[in-house]
């Protein structure tokens, strides 16, 4: 078997470093010894693939998981999962999780003094279609305080986990909302060195997918690592 074509190394400055002092939790969790750089093998370029037997269509609607509707501003989140080359990634598994409209997660250790919503769990999953498109219906999450520094507030955000074609494309990220005044104070957002890559974490208002008299849409495209046409050194 010929060696697999490797995925490109992450483009410089697009990814945060492990150790980023403004985000305090990195201090005891970021590796301190040099990372080893092996060639990519069949073990890394492959990875779990998912199909319609793994995900139910209703998992894409976070507003319909309980008896009643959750409180908050309804929103549609759409976008495409693409490789750096522009090639769409179909059947990518996209998982999301988020706080409710009041900024509270349904998690035992979230002790923020904001109400839980009995009609909102805050997680969903979907597969991309043949053009790499995904779509969720949910509510806009609220900002919430955390103890990273004095009077620290996380800007409203939604967590996303994406499985592409192999483990080399695995990505977990967060998207934010346009015009949020908390963004420049958020160490997670600010940990991305490249200004364009940072800006790309902000979803765009999407008038085309906004549903009249029902829900505002935001667009968030996700770009995974791609491969060059020929193997390096071939």
């Amino acid at each position, binding site marked *: 078997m010929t060696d697999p074509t490797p995925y490109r190394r992450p483009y410089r400055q697009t990814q945060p470093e492990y150790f980023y002092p403004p985000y305090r939790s990195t*201090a005891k969790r970021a590796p*301190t010894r040099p990372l080893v750089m092996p060639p990519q093998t*069949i*073990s890394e370029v492959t990875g779990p693939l998912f199909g319609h037997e793994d995900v139910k269509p209703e998992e894409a609607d976070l507003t319909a998981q309980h008896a009643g509707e959750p409180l908050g501003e309804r929103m549609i989140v759409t976008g495409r999962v693409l490789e750096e080359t522009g090639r769409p990634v179909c059947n990518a598994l996209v998982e999301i999780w988020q706080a409710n409209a009041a900024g509270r997660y349904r998690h035992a250790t979230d002790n923020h003094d904001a109400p839980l919503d009995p009609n909102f769990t805050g997680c969903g999953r979907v597969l991309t279609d043949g053009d790499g498109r995904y779509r969720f219906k949910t509510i806009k999450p609220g900002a919430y305080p955390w103890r990273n520094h004095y009077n620290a507030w996380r800007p409203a955000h939604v967590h996303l986990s994406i499985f592409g074609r192999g*483990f080399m494309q695995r990505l977990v990220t967060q998207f934010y909302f346009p015009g949020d005044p908390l963004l420049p104070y958020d160490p997670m957002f600010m940990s991305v060195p490249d200004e364009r890559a940072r800006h790309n974490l902000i979803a765009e208002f999407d008038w085309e997918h906004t549903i009249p008299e029902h829900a505002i849409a935001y667009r968030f495209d996700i770009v995974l*690592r791609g491969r060059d046409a020929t193997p390096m050194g071939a």
Partner: protein
Amino acid sequence: MSLLLTAAQTVGPFVAISFEHTQVQDVAPPGVSGERIVIQGRVLDGDGKPVEDAVLETWQANGHGKYSHPEDTREKLLDPAFKGFGRVLSNRHGVFRFSTIKPGRVPGPNDVLQAPHLVVLVFMRGLLKHLVTRVYFPDEAANREDPVLGLVPAERRSTLVAARVGDGLLEWNVVLQGQNETVFFDY
């Protein structure tokens, strides 16, 4: 055409609301052929304290050394019941545990066979992007000739090799910092 790669962000402290009910702690359902093993261990931070909110994702070949993936084009037996993907959360003691089968050998660079191994991705609050590592098996002669282990400084290789602590029971820890810091890979 080249699009700008999306930046990674941490899974944060509340990832369990999504990943807890999608855990795959039993990677090899009944009927899958291979040597049955349980891998357990702890995730420890720079103070040696247990990490109570980590997620480990594992990927491996089946017992014949075949990945359930179209890029593995070798003519080897696929096991329809075996996907090879695991996802487990650590508990409040930093402990994780999953059961699987020992994978067969797969080719590495220049078709040199690799020793049996699992690829492991590590996610947690405090990691702005995930870590990548591997688990190898104890008492495995092939470890000596493994092309990836060979790139790891000799004194750190043991961090990638599980220890046998019982019949079919292996222990392998994720140590984030310090003297016994686990080897992590950068691809």
